């Protein structure tokens, strides 16, 4: 179900914003587990806990510190569904592209979100505020077309509503 990207270069890159403190924390964990058999996954899980996802920079850090090829780390990261190569936004927008919503113009709604946010499927805005996904039927066909932001459902949407929805969350983000 998940559209896992197979090539990092195809993705819209979110600038890596790791701090020295995060780096220290990860290095501390790696050194604390040095020599322990099969500790790559715990390290990657810890890294994702620290950074929220596993960008190339973090994979490289793990590779260098542990003396494991990048290729293997990337392989493990893409095998398990709980590792993310791109960050999730603070607000996760999902637009229903089920049949009922689709015929009511959900495609246009989705495109509008994509256009305003400047991101595509599975991507996250560079400020980490929004990520965008298309989802299957959420069972609210009577309200079609439907979009969700985190848990909130918005129904009977028109293309003109999109900006208002985003503005609401942007304002929340400033508070």
């Amino acid at each position, binding site marked *: *179900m998940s559209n896992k990207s197979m090539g990092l270069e195809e993705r819209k890159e979110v600038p890596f914003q790791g701090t020295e403190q995060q780096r220290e924390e990860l290095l501390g964990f790696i050194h604390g587990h040095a020599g322990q*058999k*099969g*500790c*790559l*996954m*715990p390290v*990657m*899980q810890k890294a994702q806990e620290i950074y929220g996802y596993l960008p190339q920079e973090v994979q490289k850090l793990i590779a260098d510190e542990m003396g494991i090829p990048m290729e*293997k780390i990337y*392989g*493990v990261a893409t*095998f*398990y*569904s*709980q*590792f993310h190569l791109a960050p999730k936004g603070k607000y996760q927008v999902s637009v229903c592209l089920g*049949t*009922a*919503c689709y*015929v*009511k113009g959900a495609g246009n709604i989705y495109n509008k979100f994509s256009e305003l946010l400047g991101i595509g499927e599975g991507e996250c805005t560079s400020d980490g505020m929004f990520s965008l996904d298309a989802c299957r039927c959420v069972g609210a*066909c*009577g309200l*079609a077309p439907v979009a969700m932001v985190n848990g909130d459902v918005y129904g009977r949407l028109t293309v003109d509503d999109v900006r208002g929805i985003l503005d609401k969350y942007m304002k929340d983000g400033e508070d």
Partner: protein
Amino acid sequence: MFRCHVLLCGGTGCTSAGSREIKKCLEKELKERGLDKEIAVVKTGCFGMCSVGPIMMVYPDQVLYCTVQPEDVPEIVEEHLLKGRPVKRLIYDENMAGGGIRTLEDTEFYRKQMRVALRNCGIINPENIEEYIARDGYEALGRVLTEMTPDEVIQVILDSGLRGRGGAGFPTGLKWKFASGRRGEVQKYVCCNADEGDPGAFMDRSVLEGDPHVVLEAMAIAGYAIGASQGYIYVRAEYPIAVQRLQIAIGQAREYGLLGKDIFSSGFDFDIELRLGAGAFVCGEETALMTSIEGNRGEPRPRPPFPAVKGLFESPTILNNVETYANIPQIILNGPEWFASIGTEKSKGTKVFALGGKIRNTGLVEIPMGTTLRTVVEEIGGGIPGGKKFKAAQTGGPSGGCIPAEHFDIPIDYDNLISIGSMMGSGGMIIMDEDTCMVDIAKFFLEFTVDESCGKCTPCRIGTKRMLEILEKITEGEGTEEDLAELEELAYYIKDNALCGLGQTAPNPVLSTLRYFRDEYVAHVRDKKCPAHVCRNLLEYKISADKCRGCTLCMRGCPVQAIQGKAKEPHVIDPQKCIKCGACLATCRFGAIYME
């Protein structure tokens, strides 16, 4: 000393239903009334009655409250805990049948059950090792280390007839015996498979959440039996409560010297490490699980060599499921004869099932092997709600099959289930009624397998995908009778050729539904009808002209303007435009809309 204990379920089901909030309210209420020195609040593991959570049990009165809400707490404290008058409106209603309050053991739900693996769940506080010890915890380990040789331990497990509870049913003692050679000469490992991934199955989660120490104790016993000093528990990250309780349990066991060096001054060392999965179903397969612990992509590998010879980190390894381990200390304490006296000829002991689907009492049940499906569904499960008819029980998740009504009286055990085309599996049991489309169910499980196939071997990666495409074609009304033949051929091919258990068993849901519900497949491909009214493309929504009052509600609710008609006159649905979303059916107040 407390005069009264209030037990609150802290399993995942009741926690999502709000038991944490109840506990907070209760503690606050007791404190305000100065009762906190008289009455203890204990967070326990799962009672099994997940459908009526949050569950609260008051001892010594043995009053069971269900679906308790925070606002009920003051009344329970005032009336029951202070004045001794149980709050009748909250008592589990089956408990009240016949006028009086019956004990938990006397309810229909519990009476036919037998709790061995779940014996401490819902009784002890899983975060307190002393409560486990008070229930004979770690006594089996003590006895093994001080009175028995490793070979004697293996013999006891062999004699008990215990078989693996993870699904395949391999004799546990035999597995241990295979790995027992060259003790002390080579590094060996004991692993616990807690990567319970079947949709609808949560037996292992409940054991880990309700009685984590039993798993640690059993793993130490296994370590002694085969000569291993290190254990790994591989648990899914989707079970945060279980992970947390395991961490607490491991810490406490180390503190008490029950894990670590020189346990019971016997010279035996054993420690356990926790490893978290990362969301890959295939890692429940034994070789994939070990590959994952090693820090790799969790892909399975061919056997032989079997893990008993070359397993984790290339060393001899035994891997058992959580529920299997949960039986071990009881077998040591009560003897193999006791265990072997429960169950059927070839399947000994009990089995835990996660009962779900179209059944009144969804939840966790533990029954002696050989109990009939009828007893589980009608007596323990309380039957099918809404007066519907039982159609089938699905066991074994994506690896299993459907048991139709004609086998309602078959005693449930490993071999019987295999002989009727299903399998025991890890213990998920989904009950289906006449509204379930069997083709759709087969499709659901195959979607799951396709999604979770690791891609290493071709039969599984491509074969299951092709099977799914055929099923999609059938449920969309494009299927032909040749498709059924092709589906069967592919199924047998994949079964014979896939690398691991996931692929080999993936066709089972299709094969078993084809075996018992072929007429439904035929209805889909020949008559283009879905008898259970599930497959949308084979349905037509219609409006009964007699019942329609012309209220226009459906018209306004239709997302595609497929409904035409004037106010106060019967409406009609244009089948060309209708997308079968069901919005009209949900809005109609007169029951005028029906499916055909």
